[in-house]
């Protein structure tokens, strides 16, 4: 018997993982949630059939979306995380003792429940006393926040489905309003490689550029996402991600990471020419 999970990356490209067995399948009010076990990637979570994370490569995504802004901001105390019901971002954030509060806004309570049960690798720190979970639409939650957060991490799904509001200009504008005067917003920024992803990436970059004075993009290599070449957006009111970065200060914290390091921080902002060009086209 062979059981395969297949995600369509484009109409002409499939990505498949051989499944050992399925651990969970259920429908929430918002989406279908599945958890599988596999020999190659360990456990993995999919939403509406789209890969969210695997145990084998989740560290890349979670470290890169968290440590980059945390290392640039001189004193991050109040953090807002939108999406991220799997708990991976929260796990990384709780490693900073300077952090006083982490508000997690996840639209789908069932995602958190399922991750707590089946994905302890990422959901392990959701019970930290600094973490407050709000089950709400992020677009709605942030509307009422003003001058409240040092860092906002937008760990969204794709720009269609329940997460589509997290790619809109009204949302980025609300994030700007919710940040303190030196705040930073980092977001999952899609991929530049396949045409449809690239168009979504450009659209969201354009909207961020129009909303923040500083807007840079950085990259990481994530094997289970379409094309493996993934981008993150770094939008900021005051700090430049490279010029205002103090590597020694971060190193002194003694946080042990598997992917992120201080040279890679700077290097991640160096983008291939074709990506630079795509970004310039909408700036």
């Amino acid at each position, binding site marked *: 018997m062979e059981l395969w999970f297949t995600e369509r990356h484009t109409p002409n490209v499939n990505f498949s993982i051989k499944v050992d067995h399925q651990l969970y399948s259920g429908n929430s009010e918002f989406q279908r949630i599945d958890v599988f076990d596999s020999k190659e990637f360990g456990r993995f979570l999919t939403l509406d059939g789209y890969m969210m994370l695997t145990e084998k490569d989740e560290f890349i995504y979670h470290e890169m979306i968290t440590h980059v802004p945390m290392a640039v901001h001189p004193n991050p105390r109040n953090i807002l995380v939108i999406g991220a019901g799997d708990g991976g971002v929260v796990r990384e954030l709780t490693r900073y003792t300077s952090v006083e509060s982490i508000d997690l806004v996840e639209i789908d309570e069932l995602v958190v429940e399922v991750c707590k049960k089946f994905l302890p690798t990422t959901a392990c720190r959701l019970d930290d006393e600094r973490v407050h979970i709000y089950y709400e639409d992020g677009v*709605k939650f942030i*509307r009422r926040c003003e001058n409240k957060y040092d860092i906002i991490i937008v760990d969204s799904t794709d720009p269609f489905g329940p997460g589509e*509001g997290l790619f809109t*200009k009204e*949302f980025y504008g609300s994030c700007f*309003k919710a940040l303190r005067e030196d705040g930073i917003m980092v977001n999952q920024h899609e991929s530049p490689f396949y045409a449809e992803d690239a168009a979504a990436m450009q659209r969201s970059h354009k909207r961020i550029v129009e909303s923040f004075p500083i807007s840079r993009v950085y990259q990481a290599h994530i094997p289970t996402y379409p094309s493996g070449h993934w981008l993150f957006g770094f939008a900021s009111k005051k700090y430049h991600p490279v010029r205002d970065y103090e590597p020694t200060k971060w190193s002194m914290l003694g946080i042990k990471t598997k992917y992120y390091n201080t040279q890679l921080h700077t290097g991640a902002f160096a983008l291939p020419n074709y990506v630079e060009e795509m970004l310039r086209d909408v700036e």
Partner: protein
Amino acid sequence: MTELSQVNAPIYEALRRFRRMRVVPFDVPGHKRGRGNMELTEFLGEDCMNVDVNSMKPLDNLCHPVSVIKDAEMLAAQAFGAANAFFMVGGTTSAVQSMIMYACKEGDKIIMPRNVHRSAINALILTGAVPVYVNPDVNKQLGIALGMSVSQVEQAIRENPDAKAIMVNNPTYYGICSDLRRITELAHAHGMLVLVDEAHGTHFYFGDNFPVTAMAAGADIASVSMHKSGGSLTQSSFLLMGEKVNADYMRQVINLTQTTSASYLLLSSLDISRKRLALSGKEIFAKTVEMAEYARSEINDIGGYYAYSRELINGDSIYDFDVSKLSVFTLPVGLAGIEVYDLLRDEYDIQIEFGDIGNILAYISVGDRKRDIERLISAMSEIKRRFGRTGADMLSHEYISPVVTEAPRKAFYAEKVSVPLDESAGKVCTEFVMCYPPGIPILAPGELITPEIIEYIKYAKEKGCQMTGTEDINIERLNVLK
């Protein structure tokens, strides 16, 4: 044959039967089930092209219905509580025109509120009827035209006892209703027909706790835009008639201007939508209202904006309010409605129904998703933060009383001369000046041009309202009576 009920959709069922018969077409349309125009077929889909067919025996004929269309019209009449109902394929415009052409001949008077749709005034040009305008009350704060107050209708009837009919909007574009029951009683007591423009009131017939419908109020004829809140295809509507209306004569009137090639796409969409509303309209509109109420309370929480509702009700010119409408007063954030309307589209990719000088209207329906409502609210909050102004001096009166000096038909066909806008004061206009949407005339043929009107036209142009109706597309000149 089993008896028909609201679970049936006779036209739809006939089309499905017809499709299975695989009849070889040697009739129009010439695209022959789409095969003759593949690009169009790929765009619209084969299923759609397959039922774009001509009238024929198994499918009946809208001009003279005897079988499935007749059955479908009977079911529609039943669903709407009307004595008769006709399927209309020329938009509610054609329904409104048919009502007026039924009620009035050349020279007959018809009482109507000024904020009627342009289709009603166009019908006056077609028939030669003469309008007696009842000035709707205006809410001074919001700058919107309201319903007709009963006392003003009484006065119009007293001064024009020879009028043949009275026309009522139920509701207005903004969701405001007049006291339709009382106005109907008054009109009937004076031998006048009551014609109701229910372009924005389809849902009143099916949801709970909505304002009274024309048919329930005893009105004679109503035009219902099924394609607005009813979910059918654009351009499809119903014409509803009460007991006392001669439906056979009405059909003759309709056939004067209606196409002889009625689209079965439109007809089946009316049929299916009627069935859907009859069977589950209550839940559908309960959801719609819930979303509208939620959006209203969130928008009011932003501050500045005023999303109004039933609190406006004053027992007369706002006798009732349609809570499924999301109308928002925008001037307190320092922005004209049309500016918010443009910003929503240009900055946030959100298209709403319309913006006027002081208000916007977002059309809410069962097709909306909660997350899209959140986007609309957030975008409005962002517009206030990014573009909001204070102390902006704004002209807030949108409604200007018309001075009718000639019958619209006479002015429209009279000898005319074109003059620059600035030199037109004191002259009689021979064309329309519309601010669109909402499509309520600033000037209609036969009306006096005043300095106030000229100022308003300039202001609305400057604010980016779409102005239409004039021969000069830029509205720098107006045609006036020679």
